[in-house]
Structure formats: C-alpha cells, structure tokens
C-alpha cells in the first residue's frame, strides 16, 4: 500500500494506459503544455510527445467528436473535458453519436471512447464550474458511467475502461484531486460492474458515490457514536447500475438514505430511490430518504456553498429521522 493523492492516482492510470497500448492517446484543453487543468497529465508531453498528448481548441463539440472519429478508426482515445459544466457543449456528440452508433449501424461500428471530466463543487469556483451532472449522463443507454471515489478506483477504473468496446465516461470529483489515500497496488485494473460496501452496518444504508462517499463515511462515524451502525455503499458505476448490491443492503438494514451532490429533483438519487421501492418495498421500515444539493446554482461564497451541498450533519440528521 502506498499513500498517494487522487490526482497522482489518475496520472498513474493515464501513464500506464499510454505505456501499455500505442493506440491510446490523450486530448483536451490544456492537457499538453499546461499539464492539465488539474495537473493530471503533468510531464506527459515530454514523456509521450505531441502526437499522443494533444492540446485542443476550446470547443468541446469538436474534440469529443474527433475522439469519436478516432475511436471508430481503431484508436483508443482518452478525451479530457475540463468540467462537466462545459461538457454540455458536446452533448450532441455524446448522445447522437457516441452512445448511438453501435445501435444505428446494426452493430457494425462500436465507439471505444473514454471521456474523463471533473465534476462537483466545494472549491469555491462558482456556479459555472461546480455542478454535478453525471446523473444526466447516467440517463443515456449505450454508455458506461463511472464515478471513482478512491485512489485505487481513480487509477484502476481507467485501465478497465480501456477494455470496454463502448464509450465510457469517467467523472472525477474535483474536490478529491488533493485527497490522499491508500493505493492497492496489487490490482491495477479494477472491476467496473459492481458497487462496493465501504463500511458495513445493520441499521441504515447510506448509498452514494463520488465525492459524497467521504461525507457519508464521516456521517457513519458520527452515527456510530450514537450507537447507529450505518452501512456505506459506494455505487462506483452509475450505468449500468448494480441494483443487486443496493437491494441487498436495503433489505439488510431496512432503511436507506441516498446521497447525491446533484439537485434533488430528477437526480440520480431519485432513480436509486425508485429502484429501491420497486425491489425492496416490503423490506423497508421507513421511506427512502435523500440528501441532495439545494435547488440553486451552486453559490460562490464559502458559507453558502457549504450550505447548498450535502454535508455529514445533513446525512446524520436524515438517518436519525429514519430511525424514528
């Protein structure tokens, strides 16, 4: 086990991918000379050269579209979009091309594209850089949506994604880049089909993903002091969703709180909640609860931003309510 930051873990995954497979190349805004907005490709230009580390114009639609073309042409492109907020400019390429081509071509073409982007709030970078829209992507059939929350997943998910024949979207929570964690070095590639139980408990399931995992774990620690044993689930993969693990946990604890940094209405948490109702209704001892962001553009001032987001104390409160 080595202690590294999430940023270093992403970088390690990228480097390994570039070294392993000559078809792999990285492109996006500022990934080359600048070393990446979040410094995930620092030093790569020198190490791998401009053919494989390509700076692009500020046009998401263009470079995501170029990535789709390269994937169709037999390459293994890794496209970096600076944040999910900007990725909306490329949504047409994502939905109408990347996610659809295999279906439209009757299986003649597949698009082995990887798109990485930062998501989430908590760093006082204001509304246009702080939203959590991975739930929107999880709505689209034909793609895989990953949300690594640990350093092991930050490195390993990328390597597993490269084995997929279809588009994979990886959402890295911007708040986590500086977080340190223990890297499990033995297995570089990780499973990308299952959710993970990050803490076992019997009283309530805290179901979450990405940056909120650490808030849920903090809440579980606090609940433990009150004698409430919370189980913490890291979904890891939003599409296809590992509903089996969710239902197993909900059936065990009979109570579930879904934590999602997106806005409540129409959130991914709503989907999880609905699937729990469909699959474990008769095992529930309380209504499923959600802790999501307030229905506002994420504010810039620190105290307002904190107030708008899910926080451990909000999760604790929701869990307590379920326990009566």
């Amino acid at each position, binding site marked *: 086990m080595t202690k590294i930051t999430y940023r270093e873990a992403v970088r390690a995954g990228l480097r390994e991918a570039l070294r392993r497979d000559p078809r792999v190349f990285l492109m996006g805004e500022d990934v080359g000379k600048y070393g990446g907005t979040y410094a995930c490709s620092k030093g790569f230009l020198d190490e791998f050269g401009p053919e494989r580390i390509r700076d692009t114009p500020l046009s998401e639609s263009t470079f995501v579209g170029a990535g789709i073309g390269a994937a169709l042409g037999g390459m293994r492109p890794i496209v970096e979009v600076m944040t999910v907020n900007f990725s909306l400019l490329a949504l047409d390429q994502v939905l109408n091309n990347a996610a659809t081509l295999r279906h439209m071509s009757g299986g003649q073409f597949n698009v082995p594209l990887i798109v990485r982007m930062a998501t989430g709030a908590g760093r006082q970078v204001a509304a246009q850089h702080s939203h959590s829209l991975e739930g929107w992507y999880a709505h689209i059939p034909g793609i895989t949506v990953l949300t690594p929350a640990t350093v092991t997943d930050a490195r390993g998910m990328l390597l597993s994604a490269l084995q997929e024949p279809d588009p994979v979207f990886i959402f890295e929570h911007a708040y986590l880049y500086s977080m340190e964690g223990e890297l499990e070095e033995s297995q570089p590639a990780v499973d990308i089909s299952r959710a993970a139980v990050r803490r076992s408990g019997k009283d309530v399931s805290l179901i979450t993903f990405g940056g909120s995992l650490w808030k849920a774990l903090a809440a579980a620690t606090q609940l433990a002091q009150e004698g409430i044993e919370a189980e913490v689930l890291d979904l890891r993969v939003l599409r296809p969703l590992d509903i089996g693990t969710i239902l197993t946990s909900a059936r065990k604890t*009979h109570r579930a709180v879904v934590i999602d940094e997106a806005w409540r209405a129409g959130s991914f948490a709503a989907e999880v909640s609905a699937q729990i109702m469909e699959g474990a209704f008769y095992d529930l001892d*309380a209504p499923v609860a959600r802790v999501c962001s307030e229905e506002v553009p994420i504010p810039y001032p620190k105290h307002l931003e904190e107030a708008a987001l899910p926080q451990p104390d909000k999760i604790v409160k929701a869990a307590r309510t*379920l326990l009566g």
Partner: protein
Amino acid sequence: MAEFLMPTLGADMTDGTLVQWKKKEGDRITKGEIIAEVDTEKAAIDVESHFTGIIERLITRPGDKIPVGTVMAIIREEGRPTTSIVSPRTVTTPPAPPPPVHRTESGTAVPSQIGRFRMSPAARKLAAERGIDASTLQGTGPEGAITLDDIERATTATADIVKSVDPADRQARMRHTIAAAMARSKREIPHYYLSTTIDMGRAITWLKDSNEQRPVTERLLYGVLLIKAVALALRRVPELNALWKDDEARRRERIHIGTAISLRQGGLVAPALHDADRLSLSELMQNFQDLVKRARAGSLRSSELSDPTITVTSLGEQGVETVFGVIYPPQVALVGFGKVVERPWVAGGVVVPRPVLMASLSADHRVTDGHRGGLFLAEIDRLLQEPQSL
C-alpha cells in the same frame, strides 16, 4: 368523556390481564365494537366498548393485571369536548391551520393525514407472518409509524402474556372461579326445584319434517327448540328473567339465554344467546353453533359472558334424565333438561310409547315462588306441544 373500565366478565371475577388493545389512541370506536382482549380466569375475551367516540388515551398496558373497575382507557364521546388535562387541544383553541404546502428540504410537501394508520412495509409483512394485530401498537418510527422493532417488541410481549397463562394454570383458575360462584350461590340463594315431564312426540315429529326440507347444513337440533321455548316462556313469567342486585331482583327487558357449554379441557362457560326470544330457530341454531365453536376456541366476547339473564343446561347427551341445577349468580333461575327417552305414556286413556323429556327449574325463592315456577314449566310444555309456533 367516558371511562372504559376493566369489566366483570362473570361472577367473582376480581381482576383481568390486558392481552392487547384492538384500537389505538385517536381511533374511532362505536358501541359494541371490540376494544381490547382481556385474559380472565376462564378465557381470553374480546371486550366491547359501551361508548361511541374517539379513544383519547389508552392507560393500561398489555400484560398489566388490574382489578375489575379500574379505568383502562378514556373515550371522548362524540360531540363532547376533550379535557385539557388529557390533551392540550381544547374547544376554545381552534385547530392550527395546516402548514403551508411548499417544497421542503425533506421533500415531504404534503402534510400528513391525521389518524392515518402508519406502518412500514417491512413491519406490515412481519406482523402478518407472526399474526400480530398491529393496529393497537404505538409506533416509534418516523412520524409515529409502526416499525419492525415495534412488532418485535409486541411479539415478545404477547408471548410473555400467553406464556404466563399456561393451560393447566388456566384450568386451575377456572375451577377456582366456578367453585367461588357455586359456593356463593348455595350459600346465598335459597333454591327451590320443580320438574315436569314433557311429551316431546310432536316436537320431534315436527323437527323431523322440518329438517327434511332443510339443507343438511341448516338442520336444527332439538336443543334449539328447548332454548326458544324457554325464551318465549320467560315472556309469560318475566320474574325469572332477572338479576339479583343490592338485595332486590331487577327484571331484565331483554332475554339473553346463557347456554352452558362444557369445555374439552374441563370446566364450563355459559355465554349468552342474545335476544333468544326474538330470533328464528334458524338464527338460534346458527348463533348457537357459533357460540360453541368460539367458546371452545376461547374467543368469546365480553358481553356474551356478562349478559345472560338466565341459564339453560342440557345434560341429555350425557344420559342424564333429570338436572338439579345450581343457579349462576346474579341470575335467579336455571332451567335443566335431561335426555329424551321412550316411556309408557297415557294419552286419551291409552298407554302408548312416547319420547319424553324431564325439564327442571332451579329458582331463587327470594324472587319467585313455586307457583310462578310451575306456570313457567307449564308454559314451556305448552310451547313444545305447538312446535310450529316456535
């Protein structure tokens, strides 16, 4: 405001154990509806409410053993205000307006319906599996919902109560109750006994014909003819349809015939067939069968145990010819029937074989004399000679 008390479910009952509430606070209850299950020396009894209204407070907890007459619950009778002691709401305070409906953090925009029974799906499933009546439980979950834990606790509590009343114990206690009631009867009631032999020929012939026209399931036993005859005879001699209270006989308007039913495990109960004089033979038969079934299953209602105004006991099946019964206080009379036997009978100067039955009356001499008692037996005889009139 009405107080629901631990009822007397028979003479000499001194206390009862609440097994479970069948209603919960805030529930509406109508007169005659079951409010609780109470365990007595004889059986676990479903107790009915004498009031119509809203249950304000349940005071006794399941498992509590309390003396007869103890206040178990408070019922707010319909149309009457609640007291401020029991609840902060009074008539002078208008109810708070419903909270404004708009989006809240928890997303629960709709104000909860008051009085809606809340129970989690998991709790509902477990309650069904364990046969727990959850409607009487107090929920401890979100917004007072009944949860898995509540069902678990109720299971343990019920098991404890049931455990505390093992059959041998109940039998011993029932024997004790019967002993007390019978000793009191013989000590206090100056019994007199009359008997008469009744020709059952017409009644049995009529019954046979009548049964031939009935589906097998609706056939009558001659026992219900006897019960109906007793009930109608009481209209003629109403002094016998009375209860002895405070040194005087109080006549009862309605005729509820206590029907002695022996229990398989020993002992007996004599629950009431309500308004037996007003029921048709078919209805009586149906009610009687139901009563026997429930008496043996231990699911009698409180009114059935406390309401009888006279008791009828038939020991014909045991081969008994004449019954000399002991009155069940506070009743003032008991009618006994033996078995129907073929005897030489003189009718119109000729000796003929006839099926006959010995009817006997045990009556309280403080209330009636042999003259009235004789009239009563004669009336039963007369009625049984006109079975079609029953």
